């Protein structure tokens, strides 16, 4: 279609993004999410301080409690909570306007459908990212006067990666919302994907690895690499393992920890010194970014061709 070429227009998507954001501020979602993220990120730090857990751990293990340790612990919860919130904020971004009819007002104006999709992604990303930033800032304020050692680099990385995870799921959700005609379908699609990532992706990765070994005769090493790469394709796992290595764990150990417990330790031994590039940190980051971009692009193609 020739209007594909029309694509994005200067500033137009920004007008939509601003409207999205203004609309959401009035709905109080932003404030509710900020409170939520403050409690998720800052509360553990506050509790640790209150119960003197830092002293306890230090006396038991000789290890100083840092914000890196806090981030590592919190990231487990964040890897589930942030995607769920991003989905809730964005799954109906386009379908709701389509069902209600306000999309007709929007597209009566000189906006392209690309402007609408990008404006939605940017606007709703703000709705997810700003409360995360607020949560992080308040956490910092809570932690600074305590004995918990504040590691600025790790803390900023944690904040940025968590925002990126949220934005990736906003992209995924807006993409699905652009490609479907009702909010109900969009919800089934986005929630279904999340549940799949969370519960079934690992067995899918293991299954494919096993299948390739049994039927394509790949070597055990290759099987391990393939399985790890497939695990890494899961955005929540890419987030966690990337954060682990960014906070100072060796990259190969961080990747091996995508397997839990003893298995993780065995895998770490096998990976030591021979980590392929497609399991590196760059790839993990690229995968997170791809989850932002690819669903948006696919959703746009369907939306562009649709009769509204």
């Amino acid at each position, binding site marked *: 279609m020739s*209007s594909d070429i029309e694509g994005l227009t200067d500033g137009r998507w920004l007008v939509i993004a601003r409207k999205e954001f*203004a609309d959401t501020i009035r709905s109080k979602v932003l404030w509710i999410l900020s409170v939520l993220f403050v409690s998720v990120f800052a509360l553990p730090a506050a509790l640790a301080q209150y119960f003197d857990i830092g002293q306890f751990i230090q006396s038991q293990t000789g290890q100083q409690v840092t914000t890196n340790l806090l981030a590592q612990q919190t990231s487990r919860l964040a890897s589930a909570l942030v995607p769920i919130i991003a989905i809730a904020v964005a799954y109906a971004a386009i379908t709701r306007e389509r069902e209600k009819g*306000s999309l*007709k*007002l929007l597209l*009566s*104006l*000189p906006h392209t459908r690309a402007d609408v999709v990008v404006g939605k992604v940017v606007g709703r990303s703000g709705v997810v990212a700003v409360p995360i930033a607020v949560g992080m800032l308040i956490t910092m304020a809570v932690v600074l006067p305590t004995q918990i050692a504040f590691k600025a680099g790790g803390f900023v990385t944690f904040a940025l990666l968590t925002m990126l995870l949220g934005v990736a799921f906003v992209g995924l959700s807006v993409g699905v919302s652009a490609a479907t005609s009702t909010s109900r379908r969009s919800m089934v699609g986005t929630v279904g994907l999340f549940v799949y990532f969370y519960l079934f992706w690992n067995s899918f990765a293991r299954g494919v690895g096993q299948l390739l070994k049994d039927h394509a005769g790949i070597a055990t090493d290759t099987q391990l690499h393939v399985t790890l790469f497939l695990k890494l394709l899961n955005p929540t796992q890419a987030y966690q393992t990337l954060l682990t290595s960014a906070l100072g764990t060796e990259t190969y150990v961080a990747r091996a920890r995508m397997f839990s417990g003893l298995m993780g330790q065995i895998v770490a031994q096998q990976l030591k010194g021979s980590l392929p590039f497609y399991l590196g940190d760059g790839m993990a980051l690229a995968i997170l970014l791809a989850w932002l971009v690819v669903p948006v692009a696919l959703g746009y193609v369907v939306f562009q061709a649709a009769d*509204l």
Partner: protein
Amino acid sequence: MAAIELDGVTKRFGDVTALQNVSFTVESGEVFGFLGPNGAGKSTTINILLDFVRPTAGRARIFGMDVNEHSQAIRERTGVLPEGYDVYDRLTGRKHLEFVIDSKDADDDPEEILQRVGLEGGDGDRRAGDYSKGMKQRLVLGMALVDEPDLLVLDEPSTGLDPNGARMMREVVREESERGATVFFSSHILGQVEAVCDRVGILGEGEMIAVDSVEGLRSAADLSATLDVTTAGLTDDAVDAVRSLDGVASVTANDDHLSVAVDDAGKTAVLSALENSGVEVTDFSTEEASLEDLFAAYTGDGHEPGAEVDA
């Protein structure tokens, strides 16, 4: 130059044909009425003009540009009051207008527009979600007026408007037309189209039945309404008085009942004339000329338009 051109446009949704080989032209600067009953395909036509849906066959152009290829350029110069829209509940009326002004890179004053469409006294600062249907209609008309568009597309604009609102709508259409804008105005009500349009296109079941001037429309179909009056004792003098009024096409008297074929404006004159002749009116009702009559007039089947069917 033509503002709108449709050339053999067909649209099928699955195996339902919404439009069948529709062609017509709207000249620049004219007020074009697009008339047809609900479900005739008026909105589908407008949706094609706005590139919401794509034709199965045929071409549509606005300002000489293909509606799909140059949709954005077309919408830069077009103001739209769509059908089946909804507003952004949480944003105020003023915010809606500001959003349109930003989107069109225009410099209109929201206050001026709010006044023009009759959203006054703080209405503009209320959440649009709390507006009545009529107020929403006024707001969206206001949004369509931003940036002095060359073309106004109004899909069933009188929906939800009270008589005052409908008058405001007609005034706005007249003003915009005087400014030089082309107005494309769809409706299923004959009287509205007749009141403001230069030419009329009539759509029935997805096919263009006729395109005609409003004068042509008037002569093709008897557009007068029938006024039925029940009196407490009718006199011949009173019947003559009514018959001599302007705008009265025919009078049928039957005992105390009177059937008068009269145009819209003449109805009250009929009632006054009766009372001036000392005849007491106990009851009256009117029957508008129907679209069915009009279709029959153009397609030539059925009974003659406006003909009496009373035995």
